[in-house]
């Protein structure tokens, strides 16, 4: 076995993995280690796999990913806080042949956007919702979200979320899974290679189902917010495994219209 140089390995034919062309060259605006970046990437990879760039419309509301349109190399709409499912409803109904997805944070989807989320789901709009649940309002400086865990600290619950006065964390994913118009619901994460692969499969499945007009598909990604949680990325991923996953367990919740959990 002769010695192989780096040059020899770094040949186009040996390429195993590189950033998809469906992400622009702009440096992502996210904090170091933030799951938003990974989530963006796998969504775009799936669209690339489906060869669907020209038929996809993405919709991102406010939240850290408000600038998703700077990174996702597809046609995009920037929605008002909470309203992405309403936009997506119109887009899909007016152009049923397109692939339409929303990319929403937990503050967005589970607080101000509760009605739009529930009703798009209940109507069974034939769209895909990608839901990034980091248990906090990242964008605005780490305020409590509906999904913030009990006793977890945030800037509007500096002494930890008191469930008595601030309510329980809201599992929107489990709620929408109850609705007959919703076809596929899963909860995943993107903090390890294995999880990234699974999540990508889930997104692929969701988009495939959308193409088959099966109804609404919903992919929650439990993610970190290092800045909001005031941890390093590595700490936050660990904290997420230890604290978020027990409350927001990963796995499929509804498959082919049947609750599986």
């Amino acid at each position, binding site marked *: *076995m002769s010695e*192989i140089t*780096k040059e*020899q*390995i*770094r*040949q186009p034919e*040996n*390429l*195993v*993995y*590189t*950033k*998809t062309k469906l*992400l622009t060259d702009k*440096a*992502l605006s*996210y*904090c*170091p*280690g*933030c*799951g*938003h*970046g*990974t989530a963006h*990437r796998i969504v775009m990879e799936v669209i690339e796999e489906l060869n669907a760039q020209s038929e996809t419309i993405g919709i991102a509301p406010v939240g850290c990913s408000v600038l998703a349109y700077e990174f996702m190399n597809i046609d995009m709409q920037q929605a008002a806080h909470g309203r992405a499912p309403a936009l997506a409803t119109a887009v899909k109904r007016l152009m049923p042949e397109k692939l339409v997805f929303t990319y929403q944070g937990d503050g967005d989807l589970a607080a101000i956007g509760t009605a739009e989320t529930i009703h798009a789901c209940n109507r069974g709009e034939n769209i895909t919702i990608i839901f990034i649940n980091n248990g906090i309002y990242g964008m605005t400086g780490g305020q409590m979200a509906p999904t913030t865990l009990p006793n977890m600290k945030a800037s509007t619950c500096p002494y930890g979320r008191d469930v008595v006065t601030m309510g329980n964390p809201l599992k929107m994913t489990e709620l929408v899974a109850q609705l007959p118009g919703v076809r596929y619901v899963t909860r995943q994460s*993107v*903090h*390890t*290679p294995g999880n*990234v*692969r699974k999540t990508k499969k889930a997104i692929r499945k969701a988009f495939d189902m959308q193409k088959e007009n099966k109804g609404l598909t919903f992919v929650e990604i439990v993610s970190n917010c290092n800045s909001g949680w005031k941890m*390093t*990325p*590595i700490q936050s*991923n660990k904290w997420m495994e230890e604290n978020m996953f027990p409350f927001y367990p990963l796995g499929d919740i509804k498959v082919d219209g049947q609750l599986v959990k």
Partner: protein
Amino acid sequence: MAKVKGDIVIDIEKCKGCEVCITACPNDVIAMAKNVNGKGYHYAESINEECIGCANCAIVCPDGVITVYKIKL
């Protein structure tokens, strides 16, 4: 099992030094540089020849700055 050899290329100016790739690498190929890049981050760099091109690092890198190559030996 055929032996493989891999290599990674990191776009160090875009690396944010989050260290997620380090945790993901099965072969401890990656470490943080002592130096910082233009944005002030200690960036990731490959420190040995153990890479097997599994792409784990690239897959978890939130900033998508790792490119992976692999050849079968």
